[in-house]
């Protein structure tokens, strides 16, 4: 079995957990004898390709011949998105031109796309534009390659998945790692929402990373529950991570590690820190990460007057993340909305007792983390205090947590995903 997989990032170039999840899943699939052709924009060449063949979307000329382009245009319909996009690839225009002036549009198109197209590969202001370009490239890739099923990760690639499905007639599985409601709360970007909904509707099966996300898909995007399947994320820890770290400070350290954005609930961490510091000064709080709420967070800390015991590290990656875990006595993930959340698992693997919000998908698979409602600052403060004060609690969460985390294998998740592939392929062949 061969899968054409569309992603947006892959280790080591990652901005979020999506890359890590794609990595784990493709490795798991490879063990199940599933071939993966992973398409991502701007692959930089140093990705680990042991399990997957990465096609760099920037290396694919969109169309080789006029005939080919025409065939694709016959099979690919573009999405109508309420738009404030850059005009020359506005989806509005595309939609209308495809219907009315296919010939004329094709000429324009050749001018724009008749060469290798350079993708920036980073999230930025022209994201929508890039999403559309990516879908064009996807169609070309779908024509040039043989595969049995298409798998698209998150909304950035849904269009690509849809395009590939139209061209190839192969079944489409989309994988929802996060929804717009997770990223923006109630103030959703309607363009993104539309794209997500379109992707879910076009898919033969939708994979959600948690029951939490599955419910969002069913209730907020109105997708048939029959079609939506939960496959919890996993982690593959090659070995037990143990670092010797000499600490500069005697106090215990409580850590927040993640993007400092609405979704991650940094303000609840700060308020809880304040409460704990009212009771004991023998503790330091660290907020590691960057994001649009960073300045606000610094101001709030200053205003509460807890700066001597509260530290910001800025964005951390790679080794620094591991060192940060090694420094920590308590790890907190107070996310307002977290479709899954891999980082608590990394903390637990590093023997750090962990507090997670009940509003996270990972709470569905963990028993040995302390769970609180993200808004319940008192409960959060209490849990932090408990872990700092009662040794048996730390000992038990660490011991049982490690066992639990080590049992969450990508192999199991990949097995479920392969079953899903088989079911959509079977369904498709029935229809044909």
């Amino acid at each position: 079995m061969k899968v054409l997989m569309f992603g947006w990032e892959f280790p080591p170039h990652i901005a979020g957990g999506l890359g890590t999840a794609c990595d784990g899943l493709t490795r798991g699939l490879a063990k199940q004898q599933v071939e993966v052709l992973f398409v991502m924009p701007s692959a930089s060449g140093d990705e680990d390709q042991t399990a997957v063949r990465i096609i760099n979307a920037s290396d694919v000329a969109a169309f080789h011949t006029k005939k080919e382009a025409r065939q694709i245009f016959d099979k690919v319909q573009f999405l109508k998105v309420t738009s404030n996009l850059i005009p020359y690839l506005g989806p509005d225009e595309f939609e209308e031109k495809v219907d009315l002036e296919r010939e004329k549009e094709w000429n324009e198109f050749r001018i724009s796309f008749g060469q290798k197209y350079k993708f920036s590969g980073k999230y930025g202001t022209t994201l929508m534009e890039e999403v559309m370009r990516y879908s064009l490239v996807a169609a070309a890739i779908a024509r040039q390659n043989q595969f049995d099923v298409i798998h698209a990760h998150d909304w950035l690639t849904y269009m690509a998945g849809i395009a590939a499905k139209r061209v190839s007639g192969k079944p489409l599985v989309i994988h929802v790692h996060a929804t717009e409601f997770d990223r923006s709360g109630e103030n959703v970007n309607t363009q993104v929402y539309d794209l997500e909904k379109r992707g879910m509707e076009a898919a033969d099966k939708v994979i959600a990373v948690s029951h939490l996300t599955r419910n969002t898909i069913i209730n907020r995007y109105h997708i048939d529950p029959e079609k939506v399947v939960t496959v919890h994320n996993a982690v593959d820890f090659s070995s037990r991570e143990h670092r010797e770290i000499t600490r500069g400070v005697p106090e215990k350290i409580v850590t927040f590690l993640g993007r400092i954005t609405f979704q991650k609930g940094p303000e609840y961490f700060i308020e809880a820190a304040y409460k704990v510091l009212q009771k004991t000064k023998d503790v330091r709080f660290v907020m590691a990460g960057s994001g649009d709420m960073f300045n606000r967070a610094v101001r709030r800390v200053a205003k509460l007057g807890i700066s001597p015991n509260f530290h910001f590290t800025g964005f951390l990656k790679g080794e620094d993340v591991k060192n940060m875990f090694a420094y920590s006595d308590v790890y907190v993930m107070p996310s307002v909305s977290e479709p899954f959340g891999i980082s608590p698992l990394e903390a637990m693997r590093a023997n750090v007792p962990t507090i997670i919000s009940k509003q996270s998908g990972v709470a569905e698979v963990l028993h040995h983390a302390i769970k609180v409602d993200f808004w319940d600052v008192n409960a959060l403060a209490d849990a932090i205090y408990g872990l700092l004060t009662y040794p048996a609690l730390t000992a038990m969460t660490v011991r049982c947590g490690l066992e639990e985390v080590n049992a969450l294998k990508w192999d199991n998740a990949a097995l479920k995903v392969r079953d899903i592939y088989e079911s959509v392929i079977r369904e498709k062949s029935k229809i044909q």
Partner: protein
Amino acid sequence: MKKTLCLYFQVHQPYRLRQYRFFDIGKNHDYFDEFANKTIMSRVAERCYIPANRLMLDLIKKYDGALRIAFSVSGIALEQMEQFAPQALDSFRELAKTGCVEFLAETYSHSLSSLISPKKFRDQTTMHVKAVEKYFEQKPTAFRNTELIYSDTIGEMVSGMGFSAMLTEGARHIMGWKSPNYLYVNALNPKLKLLLRNFRLSDDIAFRFSDKNWGDWPLTAEKYASWVAGALEKDDILNIFMDYESFGEHQKASSGIFDFLRALPGMVLNHSGIEMLTPTQAAIKHQPIAPLNVPYAISWADEERDISAWLGNELQKEAFENLYKIENLVRESNDTRLQRDFRRLQASDHFYYMCTKFFSDGDVHKYFNPYDTPYEAFINYMNVLSDITLRTTKKKV
């Protein structure tokens, strides 16, 4: 000689803790959730204690002394009943006056003190005996420990306190090929007679009565009486022990449990060879057949029938050890409120809430647990314990 059916019911309600945050430590000494405790006690009184006691009273009158039953009511349940459901307490006193109902002694707080401190165990028992004398005007002669916890040494202590009989579990791993349906004696002091719970027939009522997936559902009094008669064909004594709350609370009235209870004594007493006795009477009447060796503590809980539901993991052990560290300080203080709080914190239920076994099995645990996770239960309990510990040390200064 007639064979014996012995019915015993446990009555217990803990004082549930309120959400006690660490900010409260050193400032606020109110630990208990008055609203929850009141609500639960009134509800259970209304659904179980009052209607079941009324039924028992009717039956005792109807069978004119032939129906005998036994209760143990924990001290903290008595306190709460007096406070929140005095009617229920009155109905128990009514039963006590009939002369057909035996009230057993136990630890006042439904505590695990037998596992850690002989002195505390004795104090707790003495206190409960006094409460039974006060409320029911009986001097208990039989003993049942919290959750039927028993070992050879616990039995010896109980015997040392002057009790002639004790109830415990007919645990499979202790009994082996032996039948629980006989009278046994303590291995260290044969003066103490042991009555062993027949768990299968007890759980048929307590757990399975309304389970429609159970092959023997629906359970009729007739069917059950035939099982009782079957068991007593060869053996001497059948001990059916369970939570009293099984009637009307765990098994809802709509399941027909009260009708079952109403019909059962008649069906059983129809058999000419069977009589109903209280534990003390049964222990006097029958001949013990053997000493029972129980080196490690057993109980009636879970599949394991051991003490792992309360002291199985490190959270529970830490909380338990820290609780009894302040025992002497509490005793020496003359602060009655402190002593009262300390008593309430000893209830085994608090440790049960910290049990992690239910991750794998045990709907029973969930049913009784006000906390979502054992970790929450532990943090809350330890916060309270921190405060009460501060109070004892302050008193000393």
